[in-house]
């Protein structure tokens, strides 16, 4: 292919088959497959695959543990630099979701060099590097292969003192839930691809996708965080389920208190709902119980798979408003979205009750 046949630099998603729509394996699918793979563990592994944690944590000594995570996907935006930024923010977020700090990262690259100019990959890597640098970490290397469609991501290593580790278990009854970012990136990205988003809404979407969760975690450290996770592929409802299940409690989510990205409610209403949202709905249908009747588009949004989503904190009821305000002050569109409650009657741990107040 000669240079002039190459795909324009600003059309990164041109030949992507399964963009935001279907890039990730569904939770149910994954569980079915992993059930057939023998797995062993070791006492040093203090967080890992068993409890759907955000990252693996390996204890070296009482003072130090390694936190490791890995994330990559095909582009969901056309701008290569921005794609790099989003992929890196998303990968780094899993480190923050364990309460840890990243120290170094490795690039993971699949790229069709015949279809794109070198500049495109340069921009992707520059975008990723800018986030790693902002996180106070360094890029220590990577691995790249030829692939029909581009993929990019990072393996990130972080450190934490084992006793400081924050997991999705540990929430207490009456804890309040604080979410640091709006939801709707899956729907919003489809809307962007469909050219149905206003430019202001698009800016808000891209701003949220590229925002690092680093300062959000710093804000949380001023309070006693009982449980922490970040909202990604399983959607808000899925991650709430994992947190309440890990904590032996149920969660009550007030949908009206959840911040939504601009215009995503209308887009969902018109059917711009990614496949992953239907997959999540199916995976978590037993766990989600509607106390109030809510419109279908709100349901779709709580199952919408998020890319580079916000941090979800469970904190004492007295701390929640203060934390949300602190987050708002440093530029996060945060809100108190619900609370954790003790199980009653036949409730199962992990129940997510939906109210609309």
């Amino acid at each position, binding site marked *: 292919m000669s240079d002039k046949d190459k795909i324009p630099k600003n059309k990164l998603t041109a030949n992507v088959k399964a*963009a935001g*729509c279907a890039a990730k394996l569904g939770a149910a699918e994954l569980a079915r497959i992993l059930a057939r793979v023998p797995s062993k563990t070791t006492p040093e592994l203090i967080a890992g695959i068993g409890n759907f944690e955000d990252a693996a944590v390996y204890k070296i000594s009482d003072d130090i543990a390694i936190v490791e995570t890995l994330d990559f996907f095909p582009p969901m935006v056309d701008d290569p630099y921005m794609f790099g930024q989003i992929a890196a923010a998303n990968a780094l977020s899993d480190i923050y979701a364990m309460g840890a700090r990243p120290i170094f990262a490795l690039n993971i690259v699949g790229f069709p060099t015949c279809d794109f100019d070198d500049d495109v990959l340069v921009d992707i890597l520059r975008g990723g590097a800018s986030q790693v640098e902002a996180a106070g970490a360094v890029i220590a290397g990577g691995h790249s292969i030829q692939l029909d469609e581009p993929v990019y991501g990072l393996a990130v290593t972080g450190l934490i003192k084992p006793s400081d580790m924050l997991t999705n278990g540990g929430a207490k009854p009456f804890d309040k839930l604080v979410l640091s970012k709006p939801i709707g990136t899956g729907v919003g990205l*489809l809307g962007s691809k469909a050219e149905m988003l206003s430019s202001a809404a698009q800016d808000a979407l891209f701003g949220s996708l590229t925002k690092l969760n680093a300062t959000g975690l710093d804000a949380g450290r001023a309070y006693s965080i009982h449980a922490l996770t970040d909202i990604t592929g399983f959607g808000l409802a899925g991650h709430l389920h994992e947190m309440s299940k890990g904590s032996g409690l149920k969660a009550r989510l007030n949908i009206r208190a959840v911040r939504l990205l601009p215009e995503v409610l209308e887009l969902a209403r*018109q*059917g711009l*709902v990614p496949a992953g949202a239907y997959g999540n709905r199916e995976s978590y249908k037993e766990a989600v119980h509607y106390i109030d009747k809510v419109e279908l588009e709100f349901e*779709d949004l709580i199952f919408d798979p998020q890319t580079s989503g916000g941090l979800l904190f469970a904190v004492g009821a007295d701390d929640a408003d203060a934390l949300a305000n602190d987050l708002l002050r440093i530029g996060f569109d945060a809100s108190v979205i619900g609370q954790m409650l003790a199980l009653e009657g036949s409730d199962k741990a992990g129940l997510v009750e939906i109210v609309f107040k």
Partner: protein
Amino acid sequence: MEKEIDLRGLVCPEPVIRTKKLLDDKSISKLEALVESEINVKNLARLARSQNISMSCSNEGTFYRIVFTRGEVQPLNFLEDLAIKEAQKETNKQRVGTVVFISKDTFGEGDRDFSVSLLNVFLQTMFDSGHKPRAILMANSGVKLMDPEGSVLPVLNSFLEAGCEVMACGLCLDYYKLKDSVPSDQVTNMFTICEYMMTADKVITP
């Protein structure tokens, strides 16, 4: 104006975008779309609801046929219904049986009023003697049996309650100006009529 569009092989969100463009065109009163996946069906059901457009869907094996019709309000429980109906349709497809095909509103030729009442007697007798066909399909002037003012509708409803499918050709209902008085799940098309007749053990035409 009626229009057809083949959306198979297109990646999300393209089917929604293309359908929305056509639904925005008010000169199109009926749109038929072919899609590949259940996700497409669910997304298009949401689109139809948001635009107050009625939608029906049939599973054609390797793809889905969706029909949008303007001017009818979508029932809210449509999506749950869809899953159940699809499941029922699947079982019905495999279940052979007798299909009663009524293509005129009389039983034989003769004095008109007499021939009309004879048809009523035939259906009533069939019901009373416990015969339950798999489906009663109506076309051409046969669809007049669905007239809420007519004398035959009660017995058709008895069949419906007994679990028989009772369906009338949409094109014909349109022609005889009866479409508004027939529930949308009892409106069918030639494709379905064909399917039922070809897979039946026997077809009875009174």
